[in-house]
């Protein structure tokens, strides 16, 4: 994890190709860069070792797994108790992302839920904490691309 990696043009080309298609053929990327296939796979492994690349993954449609509601929740709390509320939120299996924040809202989180009814339950659960002042929910519409690293059907990673 300590090795340094300079993100040069070849590395950027590798990342860009894999962003579009993680299964992209290294031989094809090598041809575009004018280097050997071996160079590309070495670079890829090096970026992985250095932690620049965390991994590769498929993008799933939550609806295919019965999760029909994606929403963001802004939570305002009595500030000294921020940590307690974060811990409560992180225990909710449908919350796939949670960040403490500055500016609008003290905590910002994203939930992937079966339906709006469940969103309402989750909202009430957070709002039920005595130190929570306000919870604002926003349901996402249209096509949303979620990163499965955050969304693991059935087994949320936190």
């Amino acid at each position, binding site marked *: 994890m300590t090795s340094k990696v300079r993100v040069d043009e070849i590395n950027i080309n590798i990342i860009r190709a894999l962003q579009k298609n993680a299964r992209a053929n290294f031989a094809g990327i090598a041809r575009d860069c004018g280097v050997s296939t071996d160079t590309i796979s070495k670079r890829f492994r090096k970026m992985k070792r250095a*932690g620049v690349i965390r991994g590769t993954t498929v993008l799933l449609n939550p609806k295919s797994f019965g999760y029909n509601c994606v*929403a963001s929740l802004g939570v305002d709390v009595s500030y000294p108790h921020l940590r307690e509320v974060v811990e409560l939120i992180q225990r909710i299996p449908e919350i796939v992302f949670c960040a403490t924040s500055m500016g609008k809202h003290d905590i910002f989180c994203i939930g992937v839920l079966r339906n709006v009814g469940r969103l309402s339950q989750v909202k009430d659960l957070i709002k039920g904490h005595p130190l929570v002042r306000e919870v604002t929910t*926003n349901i996402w519409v249209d096509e949303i691309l979620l990163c499965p690293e955050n969304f693991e059907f059935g087994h949320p990673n936190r």
Partner: protein
Amino acid sequence: MDQTDLFIIKKLTEDARMSFRKIAKELGISPDTVINRYKALQEKGVIRGSTVVLNPKKIGYPAMAAFMIVASPIHILATEATPADSSLILDKLIQMPNIILATKTVGDHDLLAIGVARDFEHLIKIGDDIANIPGVKDLRVSFWVEKAGLCPKYFII
């Protein structure tokens, strides 16, 4: 979707580059079956694509924020001839290089965008750019301090 599909999905979620031959071996089925299952999952829209997961901190983009956008009320009213302004704002947002996710929302704002930046000043600049999109009436920003996870789809370095 059956157990075989779910197994393939699970393997590819952990490593999208895993060879179909290896997955087939673990399942005790032929690689062709795995390829056909993968294609079918793509056609059904269960798998929308594949991507690389980056650590933006390691490439000099440690700052992140959620931008909550309110569109001008008059412009939200769409007719069949003119698409809603929130759609136009969305189109502009997803073209911005540092916006990694953008969506229309129903709630106290009309659109949400998530941005990645080099530093705080850069985030402010992204906010200014969003505020300057025609039809944007109000912008609230939530700067993330401590966070987990990141969707890299629209992240261009």
